[in-house]
């Protein structure tokens, strides 16, 4: 593999729910130390895409195509095997175990930590709030704390590529910025590769390197954030979000 080879790569990824084709993606690549934003309207297929990368879903989709992690074809592997290779997903909505305490949630990751895992101290340095909530259960946390714990759990496990599905959903604007800035720090300081699904396009544009705009299961536009900023389709999508 050359140095420029992508960390995570999807090819001909198609997903259907029953007869409904929800995703048709010829190619998507995530480079080392790159932060790529996936944006698009509600129901565009963003979650369908990131879940398919993990071979994971709460529904029953039919998935075809290839997913490679560091050049290795992982398409046939069950979700937990992909996770153990370092492809980690923080799914949409609650990604913490509500009946386990913060300590236990983190310990569960430590149980299966790889060499890339962040230490407990590193995680608490990123999210000091969690240290004050150690004995609270996941269910007792606020929305923002839950998202912090979800990301912390992934870091404690040891990500090669981290996929975040709308980490800022339901958060106060100030927290949205703080969560996204933390994600940017992970990329800058640790060279982590991150695929970030975000419906808050304005906030996403401030932190990502590249942007992928999805509509009705297809890539409508894609490119470096500097170029995408002025793309009328992005402006339209962004305005759409702003009006909501």
């Amino acid at each position: 593999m050359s140095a420029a080879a992508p960390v995570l790569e999807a090819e001909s990824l198609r997903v259907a729910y029953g007869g409904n084709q929800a995703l048709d993606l010829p190619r998507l690549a995530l480079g080392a130390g790159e932060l790529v934003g996936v944006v698009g309207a509600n129901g565009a297929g963003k979650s369908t895409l990131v879940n398919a990368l993990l071979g994971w879903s709460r529904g029953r989709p039919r998935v075809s195509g290839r997913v490679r992690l560091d050049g290795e074809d992982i398409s046939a592997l069950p979700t937990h095997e992909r996770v153990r290779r370092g492809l980690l997903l923080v799914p949409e909505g609650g990604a913490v175990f509500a009946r386990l305490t913060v300590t236990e949630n983190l310990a569960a990751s430590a149980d299966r930590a790889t060499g890339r895992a962040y230490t407990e101290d590193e995680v608490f340095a990123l999210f000091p709030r969690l240290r004050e909530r150690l004995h609270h259960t996941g269910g007792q946390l606020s929305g923002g704390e839950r998202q912090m714990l979800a990301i912390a759990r992934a870091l404690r496990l040891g990500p090669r590529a981290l996929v975040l599905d709308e980490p800022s959903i339901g958060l106060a604007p100030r927290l949205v910025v703080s969560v996204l800035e933390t994600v940017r720090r992970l990329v800058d300081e640790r060279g982590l590769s991150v695929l970030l699904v975000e419906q808050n396009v304005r906030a996403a544009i401030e932190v990502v390197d590249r942007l992928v705009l999805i509509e009705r299961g297809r890539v409508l536009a894609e490119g470096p954030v500097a170029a995408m900023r002025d793309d009328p389709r992005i402006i339209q999508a962004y305005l759409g979000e702003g009006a909501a």
Partner: protein
Amino acid sequence: MNLLQQIVNGVILGHAYALIAIGWTVLLGVARLVNFGHGQMYMLGAFVTWWAFARLGLPYPAAILVAIGGGIAVGLAVQAVMMRLTLEQNLVSIMIITLGFGHVLRGAAALVFGAQPQVLETPPSLIDLEIAGAWVTAQDLLIVAVAIVVFALLRLVVEGGRVGRTARMVAEDPKLAELAGIDVRRVYLGVFAFEGAAVALAAALVAPRTPILTAIGFEEVIVTFVVVVLGGIGSVTGSYLAGLGLGLFNALFGGFVSPAYTTAASFAVLTAVLVLRPGGLATRGGGR
């Protein structure tokens, strides 16, 4: 009837009940699964112990291990067959499959072991002891001791450490557990292997108290159901206390009121508790 003797009987019976129910406690608490073949697996455990001990001539401890091995094999086989339904948490289908499986086990056991009642005359069941005026057998003491050890170990495992944590994650959200790197299938197989092992161990220890027939098992399922529900579903400590309570209640009710109505009476207690405290006696629940 002497009160002390009835209380002692109740304590022994209670530990037997708790031991019979422990596999179900884990099954329901950890995996949100049910096994209505539980009673027939108990029956099978009793017959395998009898076969290994009386027919093969193995020492009693070795016969217990053979029964546990058989229980694990049966548990793994059942879970492997219904894995897809388990992953979908399709409780109704699982109920029907395990119910049917229990009947298959009963039929197969009748073919292999015959219709004759058998008696498991284990060495400890032949030793009578007097404790402060009450009579017990060494087998009874063995039941109490093993039940206490099994429950204490299980509590340690569930409350601390990786295994218990993994189990509780799968219990709460098996899908999310996959994203945490957990092989959920292996957890489900492990849980059913434990259920098989635990009910076989219970049978190997408790069955020597009564003659064994391939028709036994129904009463054990009812007892298990009462213990698990009363104890607060999935609660290890709750199951132990509920088993003990039910044993005492049955012994006292049977001794002083009427042995014919003990099952009906325990159901009345169950109903009352369900109505008054729907979460069971240990309201904390959640795999503890």
